[in-house]
């Protein structure tokens, strides 16, 4: 009987191809939207996880100023210095660190120029920030201390200044500073927020401080902890040292902050979750609308086929069999819509992932869930029209024109 009902449903759907398609369009769009949102959302959280990984998971960042995004406390926080970095490097919990200063500048080579981020740091930066060299060499601690005019190029800057040519040994001009390219960084790709991580030039921090910034401030210090040291212990040791160095009395708050990458990762993750949750609930509303579309058409169909229902009742169909027939029809319709939506949604997610350069991460669980959900939509929104069909009086139904 069920098989007969499915056959019958398939036939009536095929008979009214255009109408059936328009009926399920709502479901198709709803399911496609949910699948696309969730798939792209998961792809981007995977991307975030990967980029946090590339920063190094046991890394801390020390910055001047209080933590949080609140309004500035009025006075400009005391800057960090290279002496802070040296003192911290002596702590046993610290494996390696890199003080950072950065400034946006225009870099000129011959008649080509590029606006980019100039990062000043020490020779340890490469290891701490998890970069590798594609060619050339890093600058040495001695060259760094001497503030020699050397620099490392990111791939994007190299591309805009030298094209595919070899930049090693070439000279760049940044404001009044000329420096020689000694190394080319390996590409890292887009970061957590989609920014281009390869758009940078790295030079010895003392060179940047003296010749470009004009002061000896350090804007942040990236610290990678020694193996086996927990983030909590590391943070506590660094905080104690910094409070001492900055002479902060017991009852005063820190005027610096330490953040770890796990924190950054979880913040990015929760932004991601909120966004994809919001988008998915919008998509879920469109599924609901799709369900109402199915109910509408099924009601029309029941009215149109009143005489057919009368005939079926006369030849001995029970109310339950009529109910089953119409319910199966709406479930088959909505499952068809679900299937089409899954295919469309995955295609959209695939296109979107390629466009945004994030991994394509289809989740079989979500696909199965969307399929089941479309079946539920069919049952819920098909029940009322089907019950109306089943409750028809055979005499009235047969008389219906």
């Amino acid at each position, binding site marked *: 009987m069920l098989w007969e009902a499915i056959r019958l449903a398939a036939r009536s759907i095929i*008979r009214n191809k255009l109408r059936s398609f328009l009926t399920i369009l709502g479901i198709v769009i709803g399911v496609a939207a949910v699948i696309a949102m969730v798939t792209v959302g998961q792809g981007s959280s995977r991307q975030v996880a990967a980029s946090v990984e590339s920063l190094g998971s046991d890394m801390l960042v020390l910055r001047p100023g209080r933590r949080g995004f609140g309004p500035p406390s009025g006075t400009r926080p005391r800057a960090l210095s290279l002496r802070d970095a040296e003192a911290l490097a002596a702590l046993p919990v610290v494996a390696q660190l890199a003080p950072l200063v950065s400034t946006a500048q225009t870099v000129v080579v011959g008649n080509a120029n590029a606006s980019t981020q100039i990062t000043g740091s020490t020779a340890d930066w490469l290891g701490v920030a998890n970069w590798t060299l594609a060619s050339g060499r890093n600058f040495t601690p001695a060259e760094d201390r001497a503030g020699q005019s050397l620099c490392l190029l990111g791939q994007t800057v190299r591309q805009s200044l030298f094209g595919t040519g070899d930049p090693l040994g070439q000279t760049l001009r940044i404001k009044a500073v000329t420096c020689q390219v000694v190394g080319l960084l390996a590409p890292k790709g887009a970061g957590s927020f989609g920014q281009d991580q390869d758009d940078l030039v790295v030079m010895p921090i003392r060179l940047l401080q003296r010749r470009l910034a004009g002061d000896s401030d350090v804007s942040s210090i990236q610290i990678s902890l020694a193996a086996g040291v927990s983030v909590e212990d590391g943070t506590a040791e660094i905080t104690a040292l910094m409070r001492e160095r900055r002479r902060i009395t017991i009852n005063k708050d820190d005027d610096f902050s330490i953040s770890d990458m796990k924190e950054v990762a979880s913040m990015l993750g929760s932004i991601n979750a909120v966004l994809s949750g919001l988008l998915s609930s919008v998509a879920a509303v469109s599924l609901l609308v799709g369900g109402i579309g199915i109910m509408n058409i099924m009601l029309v169909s029941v009215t149109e086929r009143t005489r057919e229902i009368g005939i079926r009742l*006369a*030849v*001995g169909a029970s109310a339950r069999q009529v109910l089953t027939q119409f319910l199966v029809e709406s479930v088959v319709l909505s499952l068809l819509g679900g299937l089409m939506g899954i295919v469309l949604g995955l295609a959209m997610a695939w296109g979107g992932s390629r466009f945004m350069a994030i991994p394509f991460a289809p989740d079989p669980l979500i696909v199965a869930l969307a399929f089941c959900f479309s079946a539920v939509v069919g049952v819920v929104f098909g029940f009322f029209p089907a019950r109306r069909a089943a409750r028809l009086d*055979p005499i009235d139904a047969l008389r219906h024109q």
Partner: protein
Amino acid sequence: MAPLIQLRDVARRYGSGEAEVRALDGVSLTITRGEFVAIMGPSGSGKSTAMNIIGCLDRPTSGQYLFDGTPVENLTPDARALLRRHYLGFVFQGFNLLPRTSALENVELPLIYQGLPRAQRVASARAALAKVGLEGRESAQPSQLSGGQQQRVAIARALASAPQVLLADEPTGNLDSQRSHEIMALLQQLNRDEGLTIVMVTHEADIAAHARRLVVFTDGKILSDAPSMPEIA
């Protein structure tokens, strides 16, 4: 053996109080196996109501209806559906075939609800179509068939489930006289050769004359009940 159909003082009223309409008003009628009964009467005489009650499409307001000795007037809608499915066959004035559905599939319809496997259904439906002279038209859709042929398909559909009684409501109402007589000849043949019990509602005397017994209704009551007189036809 109990008579196949026995109505005892059956009444069917619609509405209530001042607006009450007595479609049937104390009808007693007994039909035994193998009879061919024509029910006649002017419109509003209650003949269609009687037919609906006999066909278990409607229930009497009062009185008793015994089908093959079993009281059925108080059955639930599903039990009545079961009774229709296994014991009753219907033929209507407007044929009532499913459109855009082949003759064979139309005839199969009651067998689907009987739960017969497909192969058996097709065989029974083919046999029923052959019995009404429509061999070779199995795949034709109603729109490709003449009125007479459509009514034959409807008769085949009623026969397919091997019913105890065939109920025909104005079976020739939509046909010209030539086709009408062909259909009546078919019903007579089924009654004579297969012993099929037939109850037929009509308002045409010459059609009623094909039956062997004539019951005339007026104002919800039976006016006369006598063997029909073929010489009138």
